[in-house]
């Protein structure tokens, strides 16, 4: 808790972000290089899906990180509502477009994979539908947040919307177990260990790490931008 309040000071946060951003960027680049090589060249084609299985290495980590960003935003929203933490709202504002883009990447790559495998660009399967709802919630949050001129009110309204939308998160996670529709069930995080062979699991995890580092880097960068924007707004208002 003390660590959280320590970074309530935007100045301290900016200095830390300054320090972290280049390292995150370099690490993400390295992880992407290794991960893409492992995924696109070194890993074997699937015995059923052939080469199209490689789409999975782009598709699955995007879904993971997009989902995790939403969970982080919901937690930040709760902290912002309860403790009025200065950075909670800034984190949500900064992370929302990143999460929305990742979920969009997940849906687009999934659609590209679905056409050759299922024979359709889109099916109204439980997992697909719940991820589409997640994208709509992200977009709703972004538009709602932009509709407010007053950040104090906007952060509260946005936080409430994020927390209501969080109901969807377990539905996304467990949709493949609750409704046995077209999308395959979980194969990495499941009781009894992963069902993927190591030759496929390793590139997937490296790609997950790469996406995660990339998202952290981007969110920190955007948080710094939003902080600067807010400072600018205060200064312009003071000057008038």
């Amino acid at each position, binding site marked *: 808790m003390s660590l959280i309040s320590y970074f309530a000071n935007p100045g301290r946060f900016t200095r830390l972000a300054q320090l972290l951003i280049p390292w995150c960027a370099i690490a993400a680049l390295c992880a992407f290089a290794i991960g893409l090589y492992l995924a696109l060249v070194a890993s074997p084609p699937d015995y059923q899906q052939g080469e199209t299985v490689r789409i999975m290495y782009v598709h699955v980590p995007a879904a993971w990180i997009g989902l995790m960003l939403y969970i982080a935003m919901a937690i930040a929203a709760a902290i912002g509502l309860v403790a009025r933490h200065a950075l909670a709202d800034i984190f949500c504002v900064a992370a929302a477009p990143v999460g929305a883009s990742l979920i969009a990447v997940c849906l687009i790559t999934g659609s590209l994979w679905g056409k050759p495998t299922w024979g359709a660009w889109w099916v109204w399967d439980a997992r697909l539908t719940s991820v589409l709802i997640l994208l709509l919630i992200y977009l709703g949050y972004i*538009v709602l947040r932009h509709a407010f001129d007053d950040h104090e009110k906007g952060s509260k309204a946005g936080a409430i919307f994020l927390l209501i939308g969080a109901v969807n998160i377990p539905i996304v996670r467990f949709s493949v177990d609750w409704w046995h529709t077209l999308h395959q069930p979980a194969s990495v995080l499941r009781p009894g260990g992963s069902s993927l062979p190591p030759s496929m699991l390793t590139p997937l995890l490296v790609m997950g790490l790469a996406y995660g580092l990339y998202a952290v880097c981007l969110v920190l960068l955007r948080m710094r931008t939003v902080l600067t924007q807010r400072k600018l707004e205060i200064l312009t208002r003071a000057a008038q």
Partner: protein
Amino acid sequence: MKAFFHLLGCEFRLHLRHASRNAGLILFFLLIIVLLPFAIGPEPDLLRRLAPGLIWLAALLMSLLALDDLFIADARDGTLDLMQLSTLPLPLIIAGKMLAQIAIILLAILVMLPPAAFMLGMEWTILPVLAGTFILGLPVLFLLGGVMGAITVGLRRHPALLTLLLTPLYIPALIFAVSACDAAVLRQSIWPVFCLLGAMLALLIPTAPILIAAILRQDQS
């Protein structure tokens, strides 16, 4: 408690005196039902199969229209400020207002269900199930919509915002309501889905008025 019933009576009288707003909403609901056969074609088999979903879609669009100005008039003419000064707790006042609005619209929809079902050629045996999904589901739509309407009350007019915020929240209720009717068509048990809808309603009845009151109170200060 006496004050609460007085408020409820007041709200009902207000709705009856200004009946044109609610009548317009019901007309809108019926107009969508009339338009749909032109959009998808008049084949009786197709319409019969789609009827519960189409009726629900019409009700959902109608509720979006109804929620657009739920608290705005009260915020503008100062009723909201007076409500906060009342001895009655604000969540209870909100609950009374929502109850009156939901009851009026629900009653009107239930009256209009047989003609709507008749026009789409729906089987009569499904009608009680459809009515049941409306009794449980329509309050869910309005309570969720009330929360989002309260969030957007202080905003400059932003036409599609409420629709964008409510669409993801409405989808579960829509899925459960229509799948109950599908189960009835296939002569399967409708209770699991009814229980899920009922659970959503039971969760929203206490939380929504408290949330709405908290948002409106903060908005006024």
